[in-house]
């Protein structure tokens, strides 16, 4: 029985979560025979380098409509491939688009979908809830198991199998499949480092005291060439825009270091900074939950500690 992986790519370059999903799918035990070459599905262009990751066959959907993103059109291509290939498992990245496309697939076929899995075996999956603060072990009752893979749940592993075969097809799209598609684009003004990509994030919670209280946070972030983040409480108070919010319903960040000041470590917030390589927490409360997730801690009031760090950086840079 085959394993099918839906690959997202940008101009032929597969996204990291897709490659993670591929690695995940390869380890998926199907009828006790893991490690067989897997099938990949892509739309538009054949993604590069999939042979290095154990893909034997690439199913390439080609259609004029793929010039702009239309989730149902992608989903229709997946559905056709499922019907042709009859895989036992269909895997996609648990990314925003991966989850969207797979939800369309599941709705079209009226099949269950397990989103954001971290492990799976047969029809038993372990998936995340609460942005990763809780795990759910579940059984998928279906002949074909649809699932998406939580980003960063597995590391990409190579498994060269040679150049994959490419099977091209033109999906039979319905008008409804194209009813929702990107019709326009608004480019954002480039205003510094984006939070999601920043190497350094400096954030603060309600302890900053006010919108003005973020002056010292902005100052430190600027000195470090990093981005400013904040907690949900801060956004809800209207002190910072939602784009600065780190958390389950804000931005998920993955910096080299995350300097979290005056943030206690609520599950909603920690779900957004799990990707940080190091966490430095500054808090007046030595027993704040964040210290259990942090690498370094400073006990103290952010309004005193943060300016002191800025001053020290200036001193060091000046020397």
């Amino acid at each position: 029985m085959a394993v099918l992986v839906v690959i997202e790519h940008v101009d032929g370059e597969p996204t990291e979560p897709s490659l993670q999903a591929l690695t995940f799918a390869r380890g998926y035990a199907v009828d006790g025979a893991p490690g067989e070459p897997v099938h990949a599905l892509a739309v538009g262009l054949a993604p590069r380098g999939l042979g290095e990751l154990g893909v034997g066959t690439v199913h390439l959907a080609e259609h004029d409509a793929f010039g702009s993103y239309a989730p149902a059109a992608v989903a229709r291509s997946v559905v056709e491939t499922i019907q042709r290939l009859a895989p036992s498992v269909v895997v996609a990245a648990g990314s925003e688009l991966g989850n969207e496309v797979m939800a369309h697939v599941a709705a079209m076929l009226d099949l269950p979908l397990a989103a954001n899995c971290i492990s799976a075996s047969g029809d038993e999956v372990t998936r995340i809830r609460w942005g990763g603060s809780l795990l759910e072990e579940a059984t998928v009752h279906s002949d074909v198991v649809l699932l998406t893979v939580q980003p960063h749940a597995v590391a990409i592993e190579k498994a060269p199998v040679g150049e994959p075969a490419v099977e091209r097809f033109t999906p039979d799209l319905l008008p409804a499949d194209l009813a929702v598609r990107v019709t326009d684009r608004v480019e954002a003004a480039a205003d510094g480092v984006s939070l999601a990509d920043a190497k350094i994030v400096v954030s603060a919670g309600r302890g900053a005291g006010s919108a003005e209280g973020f002056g010292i946070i902005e100052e430190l972030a600027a000195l470090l060439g990093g981005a400013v983040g904040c907690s949900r409480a801060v956004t809800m108070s209207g002190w910072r825009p939602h784009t600065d919010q780190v958390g389950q319903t804000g931005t998920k960040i993955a910096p080299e270091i995350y300097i979290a000041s005056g943030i206690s470590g609520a599950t909603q917030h920690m779900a957004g900074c799990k990707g940080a390589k190091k966490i430095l927490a500054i808090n007046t409360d030595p027993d704040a939950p964040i210290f259990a997730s942090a690498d370094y801690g400073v006990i103290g009031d952010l309004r005193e500690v943060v300016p002191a760090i800025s001053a020290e950086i200036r001193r060091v840079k000046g020397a």
Partner: protein
Amino acid sequence: MNILTCVKRVPMTGGTIVLTADEQAIETRHLGFTISPHEECGIEEAVRLVEAHGGESVVLTLGPAEAEEQLRDCMAIGAARAIHLVTDGEEWDPQATAAAIAAAIHADGTAFDLILFGNESADAGNYQVAIRVAYALGLPVVSGIKGISVADGQVRCERESNGGRDVYEVPLPAVVSVLEGLNLPRYPSVPGRMRAKSKPVAASTPPRRESRLARRRLVVPAGQGKQAEILGHGPDAAPRVVEILQQIGLL
């Protein structure tokens, strides 16, 4: 225009999640309840759209009897009435949930121009109920939306993507799942709270479709086992912090 917003009652968790002994649910004895953050923005958006375009804002939930509390919260913000699909408190899987919601929308009879969902619930995070409801109703569906405007029988939706925003223009009626950041939701006012007490809630008990994504148990992930290295107390810790930044190579 008539707008339906679907919301889910979820516990307000703190720093730690504690499970019930049977590992089937979160221990909520000491927790308050709310709706998912994305849905708060959905309710706010619905109220704003009705304020701007007229019509009626309706809120729907599928959940236990206690979820009436969340319906009243939404009506305190401005929803005019509520539809309550009452369950016994067991969580329904996405397919069952979507089927019940679609049936309820049919049954209500209102021609909703817009049906709003949160992109995913705060607790289960299945990312699919909105899309399934759209398919059941034969409506177009847009996901992950952070900007909505309505004009000329169309809804214009904006979705963040690669540092910019993709735009979708979809004819009404449509289903839209939204993300926090769409707007800054208001807090209910006291007059709003008082009005909410007497707004109508239509409660019914829908049949439950068999669960095909069946939970076996919940598990609290093992902690990272970290014990933060305390660099110091107060401003005196600054030199150590800078040393660490230098070690990591960020200075």
